[in-house]
């Protein structure tokens, strides 16, 4: 047990990664129950290693519901053979993540994510899938292209993130902030002289987006505009007068 306490991260990542790789849809399917049990064991070990997140009972229960929901929906999404179901699991995973946002008192972020992802992007996916396959999915739509490489890359990133979070302690961030006085908040994001900024999430978010991150926001907006113009430019034209 002592050994497990030191190496829970690596073991759980290997178990979960192996399970997900096993579950990936391919032309020769292994019995799925083995992959499922392996992945579940890995997930349980990981949740045991992370320990509980503090807060009152309601918050804890909600956190675990949304977190497990998001992970389960994500795994179901990549292991499903039917593209329409995969898109729907993606939408559900997004909704679960939005629940996590709401728990962290970021309702605007949650609502915006629902509008953009679940409401627009996934609907467009389903739209295209429905147009493309009126009668059953084709063979090459039914298995994963690179199951091994994809699983490896995804779980490597996950391992790095978790390892960083495990080794970091909350005080470090404050120390880093204090040590680098060059990084200060933009003047635009501060309240006007003689006024105080209430903790209304929308107002604070707006000030921060168009103050601290003005250039990033404008850059992203310009990029989207260029992409839109490009999409219109490469779309095939119809002859005049037809619908």
């Amino acid at each position, binding site marked *: 047990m002592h050994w497990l306490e030191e190496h829970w991260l690596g073991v759980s990542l290997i178990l979960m990664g192996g399970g997900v790789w096993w579950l990936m849809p391919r032309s020769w399917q292994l019995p799925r129950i083995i992959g499922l049990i392996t992945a579940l064991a890995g997930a349980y070990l990981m949740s045991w290693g992370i320990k509980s997140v503090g807060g009152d009972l309601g918050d804890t229960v909600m956190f675990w519901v949304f977190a497990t929901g998001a992970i389960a929906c994500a795994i179901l999404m990549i292991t499903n053979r039917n593209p329409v179901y995969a898109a729907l699991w993606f939408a559900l995973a997004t909704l679960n993540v939005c629940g996590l946002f709401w728990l962290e008192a970021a309702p605007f972020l949650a609502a915006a994510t629902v509008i953009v992802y679940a409401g627009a992007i996934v609907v467009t996916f389903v*739209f295209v899938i429905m147009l493309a396959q009126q009668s059953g999915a084709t063979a090459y739509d039914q298995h994963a292209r690179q199951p091994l490489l994809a699983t490896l890359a995804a779980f490597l990133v996950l391992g790095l993130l978790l390892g960083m979070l495990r080794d970091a302690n909350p005080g470090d961030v404050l120390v880093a902030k204090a040590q680098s006085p060059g990084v200060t908040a933009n003047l635009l994001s501060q309240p006007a002289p003689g006024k105080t900024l209430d903790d209304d999430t929308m107002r604070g978010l707006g000030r921060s987006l168009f103050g601290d991150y003005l250039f990033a926001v404008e850059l992203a907006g310009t990029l989207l505009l260029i992409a839109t113009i490009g999409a219109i430019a490469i779309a095939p034209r119809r002859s005049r007068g037809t619908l």
Partner: protein
Amino acid sequence: MNEIVITLITIAVVIGGILGACMYLVLAERKVSAWMQDRMGPNRVGPYGLIQPVADAIKIVLKEGVIPAHVDKALFLIAPAISMFTTMLAFAVVPFGPVEQAPSWLRFIIAPEVNIGLVFIFAVGSLAIYGVILGGWASNNKYSALGSLRASAQVISYEIPLGMSVLGIVLMSGTLDLNEILNKQAAAGILGWNIWFQPLAALIFYISSLAESNRLPFDLSECEQELVGGYHTEYGGLRLVLFFLGEYTHLITISFLTAILFFGGWHFPWIATPESTYRFAWLVKLAVLLAKVLFSVFLIMLIRWTIPRFRFDQLMELTWKVFFPLALANMVAVMVVMQFGMPPIVLLPISILLFAVFGFFTVTAKRLELARRRRASLAMR
């Protein structure tokens, strides 16, 4: 009283009220259509057919729930539930009465602490399309698939002018909370209603919401002449009713939003102002709000039986070539007026001017196009 008990009572009142209202809206729809077409309408069950909805409900509940053999069973069963659930959820942040003067056992808003009310409504409303898409796809039927394809294209397109049209009001009120928007209008009196500053936005909002709810003249997704029943061709009994309950709930939500955003909510001069604190003032205010909502519902029904259905390309042209630029111009006008500190009433002539100029250009362009086509067809002959 306990907070949770009040919340439960409020939810029960809302659900019961909406379901009962939906039953009688169907009757009202049939009566209004009969009145407009010089017929009698339903008049057999009870006086003036008033018990007709109960008879309909009993018949529908007793119907056999058929699941065709070729459908995708899970999604076929979930789709109507999604359609109903999402429209009901949007009602959680709508204040349906004077929130400040509520009696001790009721709250008039289910979730009072959500300060992003409008964005929440749009977020939940954008999920409602899943019911239609999944219903059409799971039915495994060409007519259903075509209906849901049309519906998804239509709803995604109309969401944009719908969201943009209320941005002007959000800028002017400085909040996304529906109740605060309402209170600001009530405090300013009848000349402070947003309709005086944003008439164009009100028009765009109302028409776009009609398109969002797939009502005639925008019900391309279920038009009988082309698609049998559209996305609900394979549905019957209670499941079909869930789709229609979703549609009528959407209708009620639209009417509430129109009344609250543009027409001052429960405010009416002399009888229902923020100062009126007489006994049962909350009842009068509730009645004023419901009267406004009922008027809006009535208007939607009149529109349904007056304007014929659009063609699909006309539908798309209306949103992308007319509503979208108009809503954008309206928002820019609000921003300019706010930035330079002009009185907000300047927005009234600006809105009318925008409407006139856009109307002139659109009509002229259409005329030229028709004339060109006529010349081309003559030359071909």
